[in-house]
């Protein structure tokens, strides 16, 4: 069964134009001008139950607007939308019983009172029975290790602690779909990992469908089997993460550090007619780019033994970089000519660093 079914979903906003200067402002006083802007342009996708799907895109690509439509906050301009068997905007109060929502930048807990009081209140709002609530809370508290935090007021919690509490708050009523909007924003790497582990477990044990937006592609790599990529209100990629990598992966790069100075011509000669590309970092360091279909060991065997080597490093293209490339080209339809990816990208090919898109 489908958890989320979206057909030709569209959302247009009316945007006010402000005319410039004093004269413009005076004119605006009497007559306003508006323009229509489409934030989401006729997108379609289906998410089966039990899937974790990453929803990514640059700021302003339409991620939040989509999430807001899926959670019943906004009414679409046109298109078909069924979530959890409901049309979200039609039967809002019944619909939201079955979903959980976490907005990473906004709290749903009461600021001044103990966390447990917020949970108790949410139990009432969602009409969860006392026994169910207890069992559920105990379980969540144990997995997220919140025992010591329950009686602290929210304003005294760190961001990481608060985010774990937000997750509990969104899950108390046992929703079958969980929407997460930037759940790891601003968190340190340890908390991020904890939250990812928790979400994975939730998905495996309870079969909860999860849709998350994020700027941190590490989230995607850790969690999602599927990625939907959005650009300017349109879906530019929808499919598996592995597929994305294999389609867009630009191969690997091997860096050799020699004991003695080398020249570009000399190192190029080692590989002869192989379809690789060499570049020099400095006089003792050279890099070779190897296309995906070629074996790294073939190249290595040609180089090793030719000259004394003090160090070898292998770089795998990471998702960050792939995504950045796709954004730049504006489409994931067909990978461009790989040789176009010049060497000035090389400096960015650091071994995985946390969250490139994070602010």
């Amino acid at each position, binding site marked *: 069964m489908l958890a989320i079914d979206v057909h030709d979903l569209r959302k247009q906003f009316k945007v006010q134009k402000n005319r410039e200067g004093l004269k413009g402002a005076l004119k*605006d006083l009497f007559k306003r001008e508006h323009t229509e802007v489409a934030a989401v342009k006729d997108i379609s996708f289906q998410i089966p139950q039990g899937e974790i799907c990453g929803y990514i895109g640059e700021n302003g690509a339409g991620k939040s607007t989509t999430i807001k439509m899926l959670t019943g906050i906004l009414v679409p301009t046109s298109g078909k939308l069924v979530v959890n068997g409901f049309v979200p905007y039609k039967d809002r109060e019944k619909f939201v019983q079955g979903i959980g929502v976490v907005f990473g930048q906004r709290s749903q807990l009461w600021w001044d009172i103990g966390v447990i009081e917020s949970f108790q209140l949410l139990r009432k709002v969602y009409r969860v029975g006392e026994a169910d609530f207890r069992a559920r809370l105990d379980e969540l508290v144990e997995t997220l290790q919140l025992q010591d935090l329950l009686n602290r007021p929210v304003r005294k919690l760190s961001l990481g602690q608060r985010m774990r509490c937000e997750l509990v708050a969104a899950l108390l009523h046992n929703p079958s779909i969980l929407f997460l909007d930037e759940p790891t924003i601003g968190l340190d790497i340890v908390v991020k990992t904890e939250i990812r582990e928790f979400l994975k477990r939730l998905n495996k044990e309870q079969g909860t469908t999860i849709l998350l937006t994020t700027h941190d592609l590490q989230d995607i790599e850790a969690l999602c089997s599927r990625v939907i990529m959005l650009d300017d209100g349109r879906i530019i990629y929808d499919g598996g993460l592995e597929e994305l990598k294999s389609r867009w992966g630009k191969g690997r790069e091997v860096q050799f550090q020699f004991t003695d100075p080398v020249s570009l011509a000399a190192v190029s000669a080692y590989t002869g007619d192989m379809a690789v590309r060499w570049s020099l970092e400095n006089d003792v360091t050279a890099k070779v780019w190897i296309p995906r279909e070629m074996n790294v060991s073939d190249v290595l065997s040609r180089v090793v033994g030719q000259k004394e080597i003090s160090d070898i490093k292998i770089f795998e293209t990471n998702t960050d970089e792939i995504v950045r490339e796709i954004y730049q080209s504006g489409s994931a339809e067909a990978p461009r000519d790989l040789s176009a990816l010049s060497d000035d990208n090389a400096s960015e090919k650091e071994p995985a660093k946390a969250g490139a898109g994070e602010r």
Partner: protein
Amino acid sequence: MISMYLDFVRIRFLMMLAYRVNYYSGIVIYAINIGAYYFLWKAIFGEAETLQGFTVIQMSTYVAVSWMARAFYFNNLDREISNEIVDGSVAIQIIRPYSYLFVKMMQGFGEGLFRLLLFMVPGMIVVSFIFPIELPKDPMQWIVFFVMIWFSFLINSQLNILTGLGAFFFENNQGLMTMKRIMVDLLSGVVVPIAFFPGWAISVLNWLPFQAITYLPGSVFTGRIEGADVWNALLVQVAWTVVLIIPIMLVWRAARRRLFVQGG
């Protein structure tokens, strides 16, 4: 330097213009207030010719002009400052290369200028058609009045800044701000001219800055204060403007120290 501060005036002026519903409703607010108080005072006068030396005409002129003056001097600097302190953005403002309080003052002025030109002038014209009021004929009276409401603005803004800064010291500044607002409305003479208060209250109020905000300019405008007394009234305003600088400086110094110690 000056041009930068003038820019704050301009930007706030444009900001006010951007909200047109605000503009229309503002005119209606003032019209209704003046209308309601006019009828209220008419009922209070009843058969009487004069009350506390006010004729009916003088009274309605006073009501109209004091509400119009209020349009100019009124601002929400207290709430703005208080909010910026509570949400911590004051720390960012302080490290900018300008005087925070002066910028606030300029923003308040931009707001006042907006209301003066777009509420007060059209409002006064409308009111003078509907209600029997008497505008001064002597141009000097007009000039002095505009000088005086400039000081009204200064004094009122200073009081607003003082109460706004209270947020540095009290966890909840709302109470202080509400009390200030009530005091200004009641004791400055917008709701009731000071002359209507009982004698003991008048002698107390003479020593408070509130009367300088509405009552003095309103009295000059209606011609109840004439001749040399006009200069005395102006002097009182100037004196209060100067005197109020002292507590602001003290509170501001203490506040900054507090900010640096606590880190905002």
